[in-house]
């Protein structure tokens, strides 16, 4: 099955804590896209947080404990897919590191890392899927979130997928590969520095003249959208998966409809 796009793989959706709590519609967009790409999708109940906040704060024991739980929760699926480069990279790039030297769990971490993917790259690379019949008459620009870009090589895939959305005009973003200043807990531990960074990012987004900001990581999108809203900018932010799932006519981040 792996590598054979005609088969129907059993996929676990790793929904991520931010999508679960802040933007459920992103979780549903991911579900729809994975099903459209021919997957049998399940959402394991035992999943919680990937442990990235602990790992990046130096709490190795906490990170390892959460990593073990997640490895167990995602046991037995052909693939594990997350609508976030950052959370997927935590599993792919850092679980083996977090459990290094653990004779039982290190091999299991490596095994999970091998079948875990970021959503957009999974759709494009593993499933060879392209949207068809999705239209959105709008102009948009794309920010490459750092973990997905540098740890997983997600760059061409979202653009290829969005390129197949009818009527969507993509505009280049200056500094598209420069950090937006989110950085997980960084943005609340060093908020004045984070704010200065995202201020420059907001100005670059505004300079494109695009109506929409798209990206692949909810944390970064919330940071940029939140900064732009405070500045009074009218650019609307969506996760790229929502556009691909035909949900671009729904509320953008911060326009929650109460669903």
């Amino acid at each position: 099955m792996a590598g054979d796009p005609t088969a129907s793989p059993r996929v676990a959706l790793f929904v991520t804590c931010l999508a679960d709590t802040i933007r459920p519609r992103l979780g549903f967009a991911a579900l729809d896209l994975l099903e459209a790409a021919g997957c049998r999708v399940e959402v394991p109940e035992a999943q919680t947080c990937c442990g990235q906040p602990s790992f990046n704060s130096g709490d190795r024991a906490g990170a390892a404990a959460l990593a073990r739980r997640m490895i167990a929760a995602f046991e037995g699926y052909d693939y594990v897919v997350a609508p976030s480069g950052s959370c997927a990279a935590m599993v792919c790039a850092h679980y083996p590191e977090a459990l290094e030297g653990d004779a039982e769990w290190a091999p299991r971490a490596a095994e999970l890392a091998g079948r875990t993917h970021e959503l957009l790259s999974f759709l494009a690379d593993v499933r060879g899927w392209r949207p068809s019949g999705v239209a959105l008459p709008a102009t948009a620009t794309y920010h490459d979130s750092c973990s997905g870009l540098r740890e997983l090589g997600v760059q061409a895939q979202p653009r290829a997928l969005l390129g197949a959305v009818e009527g969507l005009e993509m505009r280049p973003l200056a500094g598209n590969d420069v950090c937006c200043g989110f950085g997980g807990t960084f943005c609340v531990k060093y908020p004045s520095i984070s704010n200065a960074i995202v201020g420059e990012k907001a100005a670059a987004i505004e300079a494109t003249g695009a109506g929409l900001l798209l990206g692949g990581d909810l944390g970064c999108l919330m940071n940029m959208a939140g900064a732009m809203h405070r500045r009074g900018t009218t650019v609307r932010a969506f996760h790229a998966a929502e556009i691909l799932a035909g949900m671009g006519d729904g509320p953008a981040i911060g326009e929650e409809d109460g669903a």
Partner: protein
Amino acid sequence: MKVDLSFKGVTGRAIADRRLKTAIDRTTMTAETKRRLALMDYPQFEAARARGTAIKDHVVANLDHYLEEFERNAVASGAVVHWAATAEEACGIVVGLCRQAGARHVTRAKSMLGEEIGLPHALEAADIERVETDLAEHIIQLAKEAPSHIVWPALHKTREEVAELFRVAHGRPQDSEDVPAMVESARRQLRSLFLGADVGISGANFLLADTGGVCTVTNEGNAELTTTPPRMHIVTAGIEKLVPSLPHAYALLRLLVRSATGADITQYTTFHTGPKRAGDRDGPEEFHIVLVDNGRSRMLATGLRDMLRCIRCGACMNHCVVYRQIGGHAYGATYPGPMGAVLTPALEGVEKTRDLPHACTLNGRCQEVCPVGIPLPTLLRGWRDTSWKEGLVPGSVRAGLWAWRFVAERPRLYRLATAAAVRAMRLFGRRGWIAGMPGAGGWTDYRDLPAPAGRTFMEQLRDRKTGR
């Protein structure tokens, strides 16, 4: 009013300083563009990076061997080799040599190692007049400041500020729009001082084990004028500057210059080997090399081996979003930016410097541009691990992460807690956004927080399944 010298206070003032931001942007943006263009003309960069990395790793793995070889060959060339375990020892040796030479007035070519060991202060304390000959070092000496970047020490100064400094110090009118004329003014000011110095002090970009030679690179020629006319030349160099031989120095030089300034090669690349020989027209009568450890062997043993590859190009800071907002001085140490945030805790202890490895988004761009592939984010995370283990993480952060972990380890509790949290958060939302909420000031002091939907994804999914 008492000035807040905490990291928060210092960075807050730096961010508010728009003139500083102009200065930072002018230089780092130019550096980023020039480096990118240089790499477009250098398709073998990846291969060169792999080779550079291998050279440095090999030397670090065989440091004893190459140090002994270097000493043997340097001594054979007529140099005197000194060993300094600490910054104090190194400064003591240099000051002692200056006194021995009866020096009242020394010239110095830019050396970050010199800054690291506090040599400018040691010379001042010994009443030895120091003339900085690098243009940027000349500027910050006039301003009585410290370097804010390892390649452009005066990066934080705008040309307008430099014009004012030169007007007063050089006693001539200056035009800030005419940079070549300002450079000429500095040249006139420094030229006579070069020739009257008793001792010249330089650093080293590479130490060549097979000849005992010392390589310096500059774009101004000031290192040559610093080291050649005086009777005595003193080199201070970190022990990680060793390379086996000339081809290895060239391999690293190609990486260094492109990464630092985007040029193919520096204007001046000089190899100094021993003192003036019989029949030489010029050169120093005495040539001293002070090899400085200052914590480097300890780094080898404490998981920071990769950091010893650093060739001090500055690319990591030029591409760092944090450096570009706060500038070099906010790091409060000799080395700023990502490489500084790794090195400073090693040099000064993580207790006093714990903010440096934490004030980073771990975006990985520094590692991407590093010409010797140093995994800077991993090393920064290593300091966070140490900081956590040593109990240096604030209690509130520790408690927050502990609570998050406690809940996240219990999926049923996690579902209840997240369901309750999103309902509570919604109470603070106005038209989809939260502008302020108890405990969320870190976010909402600066930006709005999207209000969550009324129910979590997991709740909504369960409803869908049960057909509600």
